[in-house]
């Protein structure tokens, strides 16, 4: 297992380095931050002083060298916009996104297992058709539209929920629902497909022939085997949520990492952008490794393949 872990970490280091390089150099190709941070009437001397103070007057390679040296000391630099340590902004925003994404995926997986299994139990039954229709609709609903409509109906018209914000459990409903709709739709389809295959497999017939109850057949035998593809898709969807809950965070004023990254890009706040991307990338790599470990633990063939 340690060999597997080491191999996985080494293979993750290369894309991580590419991410660090890409973000650093691409961000700096998009214009001089002095234009954004100084008033239009600032003198050329003020612009030069700003660039010198923040090291933008050095060559890109020198700036990158400084960045790596600071990174080695766990110094992520200072936000141009707020003059606070970039790590503070990122560590403040990241838990908010993790909570939202984690809770959403929990609901999506539970909901998809129940609905997908029910739909697959009797293929082409009315329940299956309704589930398929609803899941296809959910998977293709634009989240921006869904969020705005949710606010108009449930907050403005019915006054059941707050429009946005983070205060209290009610404030979670619309952001989670908006974030949930697509992963739920996709996962229902995946679980249904996998369960249809599993339920028609020979080992299910064998299980039934031994007199096992339908409940045991579905949950003990079929669902276990149908779970692996669902886990694969759920993992990818979780990565997507951690990486890009931008729409939800923007609309609902959720102080998360997606909104922070977008704002940092628009405002050329390089230190915050770099810290946010680095932390997100590390989290995604860690999540992938965890999922791989899960697979290796679950499936002897995968484990043996990894050792080979």
């Amino acid at each position, binding site marked *: 297992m340690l060999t597997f872990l080491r191999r996985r970490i080494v293979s993750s280091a290369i894309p991580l380095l590419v991410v660090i390089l890409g973000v650093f150099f691409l961000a700096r190709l998009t*214009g001089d931050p002095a234009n954004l941070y100084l008033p239009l009437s600032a003198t050329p001397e003020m612009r030069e002083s700003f660039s010198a103070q923040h090291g933008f007057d050095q060559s890109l390679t020198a700036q990158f060298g400084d960045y790596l040296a600071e990174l080695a000391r766990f110094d992520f630099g200072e936000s141009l916009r707020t003059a606070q340590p970039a790590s503070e902004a990122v560590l403040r925003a990241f838990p908010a996104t993790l909570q939202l994404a984690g809770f959403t995926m929990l609901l999506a997986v539970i909901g998809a297992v129940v609905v997908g299994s029910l739909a697959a139990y009797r293929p082409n039954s009315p329940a299956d058709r309704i589930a398929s229709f609803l899941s296809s609709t959910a998977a293709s609903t634009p989240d921006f539209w869904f969020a705005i409509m949710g606010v108009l109906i449930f907050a403005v018209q019915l006054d059941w929920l707050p429009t946005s914000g983070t205060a209290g459990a009610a404030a979670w409903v619309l952001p989670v629902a908006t974030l949930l709709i697509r992963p739920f739709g996709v996962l229902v389809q995946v679980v249904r497909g996998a369960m249809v295959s599993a339920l028609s497999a020979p080992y299910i017939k064998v299980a039934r022939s031994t007199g096992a109850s339908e409940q045991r057949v579905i949950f003990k035998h079929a669902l276990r085997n149908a779970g692996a*593809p669902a886990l694969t898709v759920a993992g990818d969807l979780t990565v997507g949520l951690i990486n890009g809950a931008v729409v939800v965070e923007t609309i609902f004023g959720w102080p998360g990492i997606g909104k922070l990254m977008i704002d940092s890009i628009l405002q050329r706040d390089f230190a915050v952008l770099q810290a946010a991307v680095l932390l997100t990338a590390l989290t995604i790599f860690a999540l992938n490794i965890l999922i791989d470990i899960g697979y290796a633990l679950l499936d002897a063939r995968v484990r043996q393949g990894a050792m080979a």
Partner: protein
Amino acid sequence: MQSPLRPPKGTGPPGRKAPVFATVFAVVGAILLASGCTVANSGAAAGADTVRIVLPEEPPTLEPCDASLTATGRVTRSNITEPLTERVPKTGELEPKLATEWDQKAPKTWEFTLREGVTFHDGTAFDAEAAAYSIDRTVNSGIECNVNGYVFGGTKISATAVNDTTLKVTTAEPDPILPLRLSFVEVVPTTTDAKGKVREPVGTGPYRIDKWNQGINLRLERFDGYWGKAPEYKAALYSWRAEGSIRAAMVSSGEADVAVGLAPADGAGDHAVEFPNNETTYLRMDATQKPLDDLRVREAVNYAIDKKGLVASVFAGLGEPAGQVVPTGVTGYNPDVKAWPYDMERAKSLVEEAKADGVPVDKTITLIGRNGIYPKAAEALEVVQNSLLEAGLKVKIKMLDVNAWMEYLLRPFPDDIGPTMLQAQHGNQAGDAAFTMDQIYGTKGAQSSYGTAALDKLIQRGELASGPERQTAFAEALAHQSDKVVRDAVLAHMTGIIALAPNVEYTPNSASNDEMHLAEMHPAG
């Protein structure tokens, strides 16, 4: 980033299995636990004695020397901190704030008499030392104060306390509008960091900072030791939402009392209050490049654009066709400079005339736009493009984000794109044309693509003049630009929208975008 170890979707291996979903839940549960509960219940309760304001963005800082930044100034200025003087947006007059009187003792020397009995939020007394320190910190400290670049532009100023209530300010050159410039310098106590910016300042204003939940909200509470009339609201709770329709919905649903920075499409409905917001939209032509170096072509551009139609259709009637980049209320505004009339036939004939004289009118002009510079910015450019094509010019649009657009706004301009017309908007917060003319129309102005020696002379005359002569000189300069230089196609003076709940009384003015005084808000009834 999918692992090569994972089986492809839909091909789960049969056989012995551990609880797959239990693993998923364990991972999710661990994430939830690890992330703590920092978001839940992080809102702040607000009673009827609290006015709730929703802003488009969180203030990056409340540093007073950055108060010329809109996001900072609308919270800080005259709420938390105060200047020596303050401009009345409606009349353009300066009124006393922490200074009660001021006098120009010599061309380069001003003397200010300061208000007595004023204390800072930390209990220290306001005096001339604090005023001098604040000016010095803003202008000379090297901490990159935005106010310094915006208002003083590198001018050397020295401030000294003559006694507790008398402040002497000397300038390197005669400055007839120094008291106006000082209306941007918010006063802080001498204990404020001189070598770095502060995020949560101490001031003399009617409100002091109670709590800033970063990313979520900011609460100010009434300062009981305020020297002036106590404001009616005991507290103000600011929150921020980037999406305009959500800000409007927050007022409709009773979650906020005031929503700032709305567009017509945001749906504020009956809660919407319109006000002239001091911004003027215009197209800046690069008159150094063919065919825009020909006066007839620049005139044709002005005749070809139907400004009334643009305001009525694209801006939903919110605005007024304009002929100059400063609105009424700004010193130098010229009431005789009207919007260029729409006359497509005249535009066509001017283009034909230029073409006959060998001007390359078929050379492609790039209309450089900025996404979101004002509501329906892209649509406005499409209308302009259509008009110019009809007039006989060749035009294409290039929409950019703010930083890429800035490369074209400020000198040195990129020189590899050919003739350009830049979509721009100017807001004169200070109320004097000096803050417009040289940077936008001067031959060497930071935002100027073209100027003339004659216009420079008129601008300089205005900058050195004071009183009625100043008004006359700048008005003449604006007329000269509109009639003789024709560098721009000025489009419209814009109108802003805020949403106001029925329980709050507030009348926005042309400065409300940049400084929103809580003391001017009252509970209705």
